C-alpha cells in the first residue's frame, strides 16, 4: 500500500501582496497541486490524504469543479479530504452540496467519523471544521476501533484555537499513522507515526525552509514515510554580516552573489547585522533590487564606542545626545540614537 499525505495547499492564496511576484505565486500554488496529481497519475498510489486547508478561503463551486476534475484523472486512488480552518464548512459552503467524484471521500462533519476503504484494508478516521476555530481538544483520548488493517487518522490543527493536540498522547494512541495538517512547516514525529507535511508551496514570508508533501508505504506491518521536497521556490533568510570595511557596492555585490548561489527564483528576507562604519550609507531600494527580496531588516549598528564618545563629547550637544538616550533600550530609540549621532558627527566640520 502506498499513499501521499498533503495538507495546507492553500489554493487561491495570494502571497506577499503588493510585490512583483505575487500573482505568479498564486498561480504556482495551483500549479504545484496539479503537478502532484499528475505525479500520482504517472505513478498511482492507493490513497491520497488531504489534511485540511486545501483552499485558502471558502471554495467556490468552480474551484471545487476544477479540483474534482483533477481527482477524476486518478480514478485508482481513493482521496480522503477534511476541511480545515481556512476552508471550513460554513453556512453557505460550496462543500455542502458538492457532488464529488466516486474516488473522493469527503468528511463533512465536525465530529470524528471512520470509513473503511472499499479496496484495501484501511480504516480512515477524520473530521472537518465547520467553524473557523475549534478550541476543544477533539482528539483527546481517541483510539482506533478494533479491526484488521491499517488505521489512519486525518486531523487538522494543533494550536490552542485549532484543536489543541497532546502530540505525545496522540502518537501512542494506536493509529498506524496520523496525517496532520495546519502547521506549514514540515515535521515528522518519532519514527514517522505522525507528521505534518507542511504546505506544498510556502504561503508567506514566514514559511521559510523546504516544502513538499509526505509519501508513505507499508513495510510488513508498519507504515514508513518520507518527506518529498516539491515546492517551486522557497523563502530563505540571508544574513549579511557587515564590518568596518564594508562598502555599499560590496554589500550589494555580496547579496547578488549569495542570491545567485542559493537560487535566483527563491524569495528572500535579508537581515543586515554587524557593525558598520559611519560613512557607509546603504540604499535599501538598491539592495532590494538584488533579487526577490520581501523584506530588508537592518540590524547593523554603527561602529561607535558610545562610552568613549560620551566622555569625549561631554558638555556639548553630542555628549548631551548620548546621555539623553542612555538607559533607553527600545529598538526604535537605539536606532534614533545612532541616526542622530551619525548625522551630527558625519556633518561636523574638521576641528
Amino acid at each position, binding site marked *: 500500500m502506498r499513499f501521499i499525505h498533503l495538507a495546507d495547499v492553500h489554493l487561491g492564496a495570494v502571497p506577499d501582496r503588493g510585490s512583483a511576484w505575487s500573482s505568479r505565486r498564486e498561480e504556482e500554488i495551483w500549479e504545484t497541486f496539479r503537478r502532484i496529481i499528475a505525479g500520482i497519475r504517472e505513478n498511482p498510489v492507493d490513497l491520497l490524504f488531504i489534511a485540511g486547508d486545501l483552499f485558502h478561503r471558502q471554495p467556490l463551486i468552480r474551484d471545487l469543479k476544477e479540483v474534482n476534475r483533477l481527482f477524476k484523472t486518478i480514478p485508482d486512488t481513493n482521496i480522503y479530504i477534511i476541511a480545515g480552518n481556512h476552508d471550513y464548512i460554513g453556512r453557505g459552503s460550496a462543500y455542502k452540496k458538492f457532488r464529488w467524484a466516486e474516488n473522493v471521500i469527503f468528511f463533512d462533519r465536525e465530529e470524528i467519523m471512520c470509513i473503511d476503504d472499499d479496496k484495501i484494508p484501511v480504516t480512515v478516521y477524520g473530521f472537518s471544521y465547520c467553524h473557523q476555530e475549534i478550541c476543544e481538544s477533539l482528539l483527546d483520548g481517541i483510539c482506533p476501533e478494533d479491526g484488521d488493517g491499517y488505521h489512519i487518522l486525518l486531523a487538522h490543527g494543533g494550536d490552542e484555537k485549532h484543536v489543541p493536540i497532546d502530540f505525545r498522547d496522540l502518537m501512542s494512541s494506536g493509529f498506524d499513522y496520523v496525517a496532520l495538517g495546519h502547521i506549514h512547516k514540515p515535521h515528522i514525529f518519532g519514527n514517522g507515526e505522525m507528521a505534518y507535511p507542511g504546505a506544498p508551496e510556502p504561503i508567506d514570508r514566514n514559511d521559510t525552509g523546504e516544502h513538499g508533501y509526505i509519501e508513505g508505504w507499508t513495510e510488513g506491518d508498519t507504515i514508513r514515510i518520507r518527506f518529498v521536497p516539491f515546492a517551486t521556490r522557497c523563502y530563505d533568510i540571508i544574513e549579511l554580516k557587515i564590518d568596518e570595511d564594508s562598502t555599499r557596492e560590496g554589500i550589494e555585490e555580496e547579496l547578488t552573489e549569495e542570491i545567485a548561489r542559493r537560487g535566483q527564483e527563491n524569495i528572500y528576507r535579508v537581515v543586515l547585522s554587524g557593525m558598520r562604519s559611519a560613512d557607509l550609507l546603504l540604499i535599501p531600494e538598491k539592495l532590494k533590487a538584488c533579487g526577490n527580496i520581501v523584506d530588508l531588516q537592518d540590524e547593523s549598528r554603527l561602529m561607535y564606542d558610545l562610552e568613549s564618545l560620551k566622555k569625549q563629547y561631554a558638555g*556639548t550637544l553630542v555628549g548631551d545626545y548620548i546621555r539623553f538616550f542612555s538607559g533607553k533600550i527600545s529598538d526604535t530609540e537605539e536606532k534614533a540614537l545612532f541616526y542622530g549621532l551619525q548625522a551630527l558627527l558625519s556633518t561636523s566640520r574638521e576641528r
Partner: protein
Amino acid sequence: MLIKRITIRNFGKIHNRTFEFSDGINLLYGENESGKTTLHTFIKCMFYGIPRTRGRAAKNDTYRTYEPWENPGDYGGTIWFESEGMSYRLTRNFSRERPFAELLCQNNGALLNPDDGALEEILGNVSEAVYDNTVSIGQMKSVTGQDLVHELQNYMAGYEGSADSTIDIQRASQMLKMTRKGFQVQENRRKKAIDSEQIRILSRITYLEEEEKKLDARMQSIRGKINELDPDGSGTEYIERRIMKTRRKAHYIGLTSALVSCILLILAMFMLRRSFRAAAVICAVIVLAFGFIRRYMLGREADRLAEYCDEWKEHYKKLTWEMLHTERALVERQTAIENLREEYSEGEDALYRISPEAEEVRAINIALSTIESLSVNINTQVGTRLRERTSRILAGITNGKYTEVLMNEELKMAVNTEARVVPLERLSRGTLEQIYFSLRMAAGELFCGGVPFPVILDDVFGTYDEERLKSLLMWLRGEKRQVMISTCSSREAELMLEEKIKFNELLL
C-alpha cells in the same frame, strides 16, 4: 589650570626636550615645521590619550602620524601641571608594546590611574570636545571673505546650538531628513501598491454585489412565477384528478349509452307493433349516438387537460431548475464576496501594520526632535552669555570700536559699532579674525566651567596688523589664564618688549 613643565621623550619630530612654562603669557617661537603643532598635540594627547582609528582610516590617524620612527617603544613623555592648588605629574607611554600611564599627586604622593576617571575629575570634567573647542585656537581656515563670514557664522551657530563649534545642526538635520525621505518614499510605494489592490478588491466586490442583487431579483421573480403556477403547493394533483374523473365519466357514459341502446334493441325484438319497434330502434340509435358523441367530447376534454398538465409540469420543472441554478449562482457570488471582504480586511491590516520603513521614520523623527530640543536647551543656557562675553572681549581687543556681536534667526551675524550695525560681509579679514578670537576666548571661559584652562594660540596673528596685535596683547596681559602663543614671527616678542608686557619665551 597651569601647565608648568613638559618633557617629551619621543613624539613626532620632537625628541628628549623639556619646556618650562610660566603663568601669564608664554611665547613659543619656532620656524615653520619646527614642531609647534606637535607640542600642542602632545599636550592634548597627554590629557586625553591618542585617538586611534580602526579600519581604512587608520593609516592617517593621529597615532600613526606622531609615532616615532626610531624608538617606537618609547612614545610619550611627562607633563607637570597645577590645578586648584594641587601639583600633578602625568607620565605616559603610548607605545603598543609597553603602554604606560601614571598620575602622581605631588602634594600627597598619591599614585593615581589617569584613565579610570581621576584625570577627568582633575580636569574639571572638561571633555575632549570641549577642550578642542576652547583651549586650542588656530587661524580661521577659509581664504576668501565670503567663506570667512560663513565659517565664523558656523562657529557661532555651532557654539550656541551645540556648545561645539564643529557641529552643524542644520546640515545634520538635513541629512536626517534626506534619509527619512528615502524611507518615506518606500513606505508610500508600499502603501500605494496595497491601496490600488484594495481599490481593485472593492470594485470587484461592488460588481459582485450588483450581480448578487440581480440574481436575488431573478430568484424573487421565479419564486413569484412558481407561486402563481402553484399557489397552494398541491402541484398537478387537482388537474390529474379532473382528468381521471372526465375519463371515467366518458367511460361510464359510453358504457351506459351502449347498455341502454342494447336494452332498447332487445325490447324492440319483442315489440309486436312495427311502429313501436321502429321507434325503439330509433331511440336506441339516438341513445347510442348521444352516448358516443358525449364520450368522444369528454375524451377530447381529458386529452386537452392531460396536454395542459404535461405543459404545466414541464413549466414547473423548468422554473424549479432555474430557481436552483440561480440560487447556486447567488451562493457562489456570496461566497466570493465574503472571501474578497476577508482579503480586503487583511489588506487594511497590512496597511496599518507598522512596516520596517515606518519604524525607521519614527526613529529618525525621534532623533530630529531630540537634537532640536537639546540644542534649544544649550542655546538658552549659553547663547546669551556667549554673545555677551564675546561682545565684551571684542570691545576689549578693539579698544571699544565694536561693542556688540549680533546674530539673527537665520544665523546671520553682524557687529554693532557705536554708531551703527555692520553686517559681517562688510568687515575686513582682520576684524573677522578679531571676532573669531573673541568668540573662542568667550567659549573657553563659558564651557570650561570652574577650571580656567590655558589657551593655546597657534599661529593666530598672521593677518593681524600691528595696531590690532598690540591691543590684543595688551588685553591678554589682563587675563588670568595661562596663554601660549606659538608663532614663527618675531613681531609678538618685539611688541611685548616695546609695551613692557611680561612673557616667557621658549624656543623650539
